[in-house]
């Protein structure tokens, strides 16, 4: 008994405790005696991203730099045996697309899914994920190019690009020569609501429909916005009349945070990523949403409710439009198969699968929203939820930011999420 009490289990004395605290304090004191220069290449201007790459905007396209030690693969190579590791959003690529690729090229596809590009970025940069081809957000492109994480593409394998993709995207603003990317799918961001629960609201009745969250009465506890920094603050800027949703002007960001504070006080707005579900179930009546959420919501809506009550609005001009791109890992073990995969995604068969599976538009000829609806591929009531070609070509986009810009945005988002 005595022996036990003298042992380690019961022997934490005041001295031992102070020794433990002293060790930590000693380490901190040690740090005060030495200094080392940070390896950061600070000094980026507001117009430059990682590696000094100019920040692309729809009005000022940027050619991403090519490096001698990071070349595209040679032409005329045979596809590897696979398996092809595809790293992509959860729930965006239909199973049919995977199987049709496997059948066509005899290469097994092994998908790994991420919940959001922000989640994928650190994993890729840390080298902890093994992939051949990745569904990359536009904002991340300069980071991957500067770090030589992705390799340029060889267009001789991408025959569908030139023949199928819309002219406006043959040389996209985020990658002016399409040196590293092929286009992914497009969606719009706007306002979704339940017409049966808010029968009197019509966006056409307002000069600035984004104001609805601040003007409509009786919606406290029934409002949700996206829990993504760029979507959340971006639409808040639009509401405030700032058309550049990539602004890093502190006044714009502060105004967006203030508007959010007001919204929190007024409606106890929720931040979430399940807009399709909460709207369908009536938990929320009005939300910031992606157009595709309206399509998904149909699968969650109670049987007794007509899906026609699910409504979506985004402006024809200057709508917030988002898209991902496809890129190939510099360390890809199957680079030829990766090219073929990207080419496969630009064919009509996949584009049809894609819009019917996830409500996203692939920007290839014949897959414009009006054609998709006219051909009966999607319901007429999704007309506003699917991004039109006009919206895609004249939309505003979340574009890459400098490190300082990212920091300013993240601080603003923290202030929103802390209700500070």
């Amino acid at each position, binding site marked *: 008994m*005595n022996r036990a*009490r003298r042992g380690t289990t*019961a*022997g*934490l*004395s*005041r001295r031992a*405790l102070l020794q*433990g605290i002293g060790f*930590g304090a000693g*380490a*901190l004191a*040690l*740090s*005060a*005696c*030495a200094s*080392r220069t*940070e*390896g*950061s*290449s*600070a000094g980026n201007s507001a117009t430059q991203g*990682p*590696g000094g790459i100019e920040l692309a905007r729809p009005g000022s396209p940027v050619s991403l730099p090519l490096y001698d030690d990071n070349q595209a693969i040679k032409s005329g190579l045979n596809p590897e045996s696979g398996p092809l590791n595809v790293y992509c959003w959860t729930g965006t690529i239909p199973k049919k697309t995977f199987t049709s690729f496997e059948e066509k090229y005899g290469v097994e596809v092994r998908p790994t899914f991420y919940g959001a590009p*922000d*989640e994928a*970025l*650190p994993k890729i*940069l*840390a080298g902890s994920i093994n992939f051949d081809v990745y569904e990359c957000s536009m904002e991340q492109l300069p*980071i991957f190019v*500067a*770090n030589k994480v992705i390799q340029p593409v060889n267009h001789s394998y991408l025959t569908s690009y030139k023949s199928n993709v819309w002219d406006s995207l043959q040389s996209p603003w985020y990658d002016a020569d399409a040196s590293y990317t092929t286009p992914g799918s497009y969606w719009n961001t706007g306002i979704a609501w339940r017409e049966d629960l808010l029968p009197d609201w019509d966006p056409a009745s307002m000069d600035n429909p984004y104001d609805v969250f601040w003007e409509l009465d009786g919606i*406290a*506890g*029934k409002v*949700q916005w996206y829990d993504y920094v760029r979507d959340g603050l971006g639409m808040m800027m639009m509401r405030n009349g700032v058309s550049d949703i990539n602004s890093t002007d502190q006044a714009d960001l502060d105004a967006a945070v203030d508007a*959010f504070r007001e919204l*929190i006080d007024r409606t*106890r*707005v*929720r*931040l*979430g990523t399940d807009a399709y579900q909460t709207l369908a*179930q009536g*938990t929320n009546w009005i939300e910031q949403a992606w157009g595709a959420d309206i399509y998904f919501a149909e699968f969650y809506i109670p049987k007794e409710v007509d899906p026609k009550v699910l409504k979506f609005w985004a402006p024809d001009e200057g709508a917030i439009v988002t898209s991902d791109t496809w890129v190939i890992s510099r360390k890809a073990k199957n680079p030829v198969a990766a090219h073929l995969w990207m080419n496969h995604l630009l064919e009509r068969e996949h584009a049809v699968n894609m819009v019917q599976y996830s409500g996203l538009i692939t920007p290839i000829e014949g897959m414009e929203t009006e054609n998709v609806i006219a051909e009966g591929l999607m319901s007429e009531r999704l007309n506003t939820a699917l991004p039109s070609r006009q919206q895609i070509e004249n939309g505003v986009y979340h574009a890459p930011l400098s*490190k300082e810009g*990212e*920091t300013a945005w*993240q*601080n603003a*988002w*923290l*202030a*929103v*999420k*802390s*209700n*500070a």
Partner: protein
Amino acid sequence: MAERLAGREVKRLRSRRDPDSAYPRGFWHALGAPGFAWFAFWVLVPAYTIVAVSMGYVSDSMLPVPEWDPRYWNLETLRMVLGEMAPGGVFAKVVTNTVTYVAGAMVLCVLVGYPVAYYIAKQAGRWKVLLIVLLTIPFWTSYLMRMLAWIGLLATDGYVNRLLMGVGILDGPYGWLEGQSFVVVISLAYGYLPYFILPLLASLDRIDDRLIDAAKDLGLGKAGAFFKVILPLSKMPLIAACTVILLPMCGDFYTTTLMSGSPATAMIGNQIQVLAQGGPQQNVGASLALLLQLTLILLLSFYLYASSKSNKAVPA
């Protein structure tokens, strides 16, 4: 005869003095070594990594650059985060929320969990085993699943609203999941209650019943025996049980995300999640996590010290 008895006594004493003599030298150290190595690798290394990221910086490519060498630690980020936790700072509200919600949930756990644990430990009689089995039922499903089940119950058209409207307490559905602080507190208490009760139950079960009998023999009534004997002896088990739930509750982010989702009810864990997931301020996220850890370590140290002092106070 006397010699023979004396011999037996000597043999018994020798056995008591050296109970481990049957094992080879170093046996216990060898037995514990793999566990310690596992602990060191999977607990201490990640913990040190958080420190190193906090003391380092983030490159222009948004990659955290940890500073492993304590001589070059940069305390600026830590200092900045500490400043932002003060009133008016960006983290002040979440610190207040976290302290308030965790304190509220702990009070609820004590109010609900202590009587349950005490009843099972001392009063349940032949039902004791069954009740302990019932207590483990929450562990059959994950914490997340239990919270999701609550969402179903508390939804606008959920069973709770239906019941309350059915009996006439509510005229219309109440928005339980619409950013209500008290729902977060109740949910935290609900989620962590099993983790509170089980260690408390184990400790209360070890309180010697003869002490209670002695108190009664000495003239104390049932209430007197409880307040003068059982409650003082429950102090350390209560602190231990509170410690068990305090640590995970302080870092919790998914309870408030699921049960509220409103920034008005955000906790420190939510901010760590935002910052640590990526972006230009992963060192800020690591600093926030580090400060949370240091606070909890201080509280844990107090518990260990108090526990050690309490053990010494028990007569041999």
